């Protein structure tokens, strides 16, 4: 009897009735997977140091997550992959030569202070990995800007320090860049495959684009933020980037160098810290692009992607509130 009764039971539940198979943790691990090509290129160019630095960041992030959740008496959610992803992103944003304590402290700032102290996953205002990097860059400016030439570590060449393409561009201009890399085509090719100095994971544009394409295909990210971000940087650096007047800049160099690709596809699109409205995402992307171009062309730092995204993170609630679509049938509130 009991069984028969159970079959007839009417299930009453609130919407949504159709649930996706997706979960936070699945998304986190998939995004981590999409960074694999970039990580592989980092290992290829910078050798075992790449694995070492990234591993330190991951361990630091996981430990910070566990530590704060333990202290606060919250459920331990180390396995959901969000701290792991933060660690990987942070590692890919570090130069290969950093001493061991920088990844550890930076990942503590990223996960414990930027994420957990603001309430944990979903409540953080700023992108944790970028905040960790910003802290490290301000605290240890020299160690964080000592770049090594990629030596294809397994070929047994000695590493030498050098400036990043953007650093050269800022200090000496395009002619010096062409002097270092050869002609224009060689320069573009080398930037595209990533044979240049820079943070571990930001150098190889191709590898990053493969990961981004995978995320786009899985629909984990939409094109709105990255495309508006990149287009704004391209446009502004083309117009204002040249020394000989308007419209003489080289947008391709700007698009392919620095942390732009990593930032635009993987950091700016972080669900928690970017607007959820599509219109808002375009505004967010344009803002990021404008600030990046402004910092690259006019400010003291050669690279501005990190600060641009962090600054725009502050505006996310404002953008969301002002651009959210009107609920169908709802009236506009009077007096607003």
């Amino acid at each position, binding site marked *: 009897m009991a069984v028969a009764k159970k079959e007839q039971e009417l299930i009453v539940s609130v919407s949504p009735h159709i649930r996706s198979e997706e979960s936070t943790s699945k998304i986190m691990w998939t995004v981590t997977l999409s960074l694999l090509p970039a990580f592989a290129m980092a290992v290829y160019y910078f050798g075992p140091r790449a694995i070492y630095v990234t591993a330190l960041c991951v361990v630091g992030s996981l430990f910070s997550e566990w530590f704060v959740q333990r202290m606060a008496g919250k459920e331990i959610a180390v396995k959901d992959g969000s701290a792991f992803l933060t660690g990987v992103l942070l590692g890919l944003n570090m130069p290969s030569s950093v001493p061991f304590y920088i990844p550890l*402290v930076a990942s503590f700032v990223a996960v414990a*202070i930027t994420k957990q*102290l603001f309430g944990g996953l979903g409540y953080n205002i700023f992108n944790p990995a970028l905040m960790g990097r910003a*802290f490290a860059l*301000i*605290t*240890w*400016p020299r160690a964080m800007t000592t770049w090594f030439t990629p030596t294809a570590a397994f070929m047994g060449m000695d590493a030498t320090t050098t400036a990043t393409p953007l650093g050269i561009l800022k200090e000496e201009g395009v002619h010096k860049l062409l002097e270092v890399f050869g002609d224009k085509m060689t320069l573009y090719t080398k930037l595209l495959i990533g044979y240049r100095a820079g943070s571990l994971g930001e150098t190889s544009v191709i590898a990053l684009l493969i990961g981004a394409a995978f995320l786009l295909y899985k629909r984990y990210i939409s094109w709105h933020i990255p495309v508006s971000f990149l287009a704004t940087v391209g446009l502004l650096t083309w117009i204002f980037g040249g020394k000989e007047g308007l419209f003489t800049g080289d947008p391709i160099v700007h698009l392919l160098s620095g942390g732009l690709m990593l930032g635009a596809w993987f950091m700016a699109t972080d669900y928690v810290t970017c607007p959820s409205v599509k219109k808002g995402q375009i505004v967010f992307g344009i803002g990021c692009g404008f600030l990046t171009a402004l910092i690259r062309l006019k400010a003291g730092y050669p690279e501005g992607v990190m600060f641009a995204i962090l600054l725009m993170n502050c505006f996310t609630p404002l953008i969301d509130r002002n651009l959210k679509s009107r609920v169908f049938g709802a009236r506009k509130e009077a007096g607003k």
Partner: protein
Amino acid sequence: MEHQLPEEKVSYLQILKTAIFKENVIFRLVISLCPSIAVTNSVRNGFLLGIAVVFVQVMVNVTVAAIRKFIHPRIRIPIFMLIISGWVTIVDMIMAAYARAAYKEIGLYIQIIVAFASILARAEMFASKNKVLPSLFDGLGSSLGFLGALVTISFFRELLGKGTLLGHTIVNAKPLLIMVMPTGGFLVVGLLMGFFNWIDIRFYGGKGAGGAGGH
């Protein structure tokens, strides 16, 4: 906030303790954050400003409490401001005359004591409603709490940012450069506030500090 004390029921020690800990200007009331970040990049500066604030706060509280019956409620704030700026001017002149070196470094902030929210807050919340002696203890407690907070914050900032304490080298390096910058000040204030909240909740069964900030 009700600060009208029942006559003679609360001891002066109690007033002092309340003002130092329970109503700590920076970690509890979250006011006067400006100086707590601006001058705390070295212990010496934090301490000197704290001392100046102790003097001004006590004298302002005593003055306000002494003449509280003659102050018309409608114009009390301008009158408090006049009293505060009078005492600040005295401190400013004394420091300029007898402590030139220190005055060069924190002179600007001495003048800004006029605008410290903490001083006006104690005058308004406590001194204007109480007798002279309790007001004196309240001012002393409040400003000692402020002094303690400044010294605590600057201790961490100087040690971590410069590797020194009171100018003496402790670590021959600059472990966390960010700490001497304003960013580091915000970080240290926030983390210490969290730490004191944690202690309060964990060991004293309190609810932790809440509330909005001020200058």
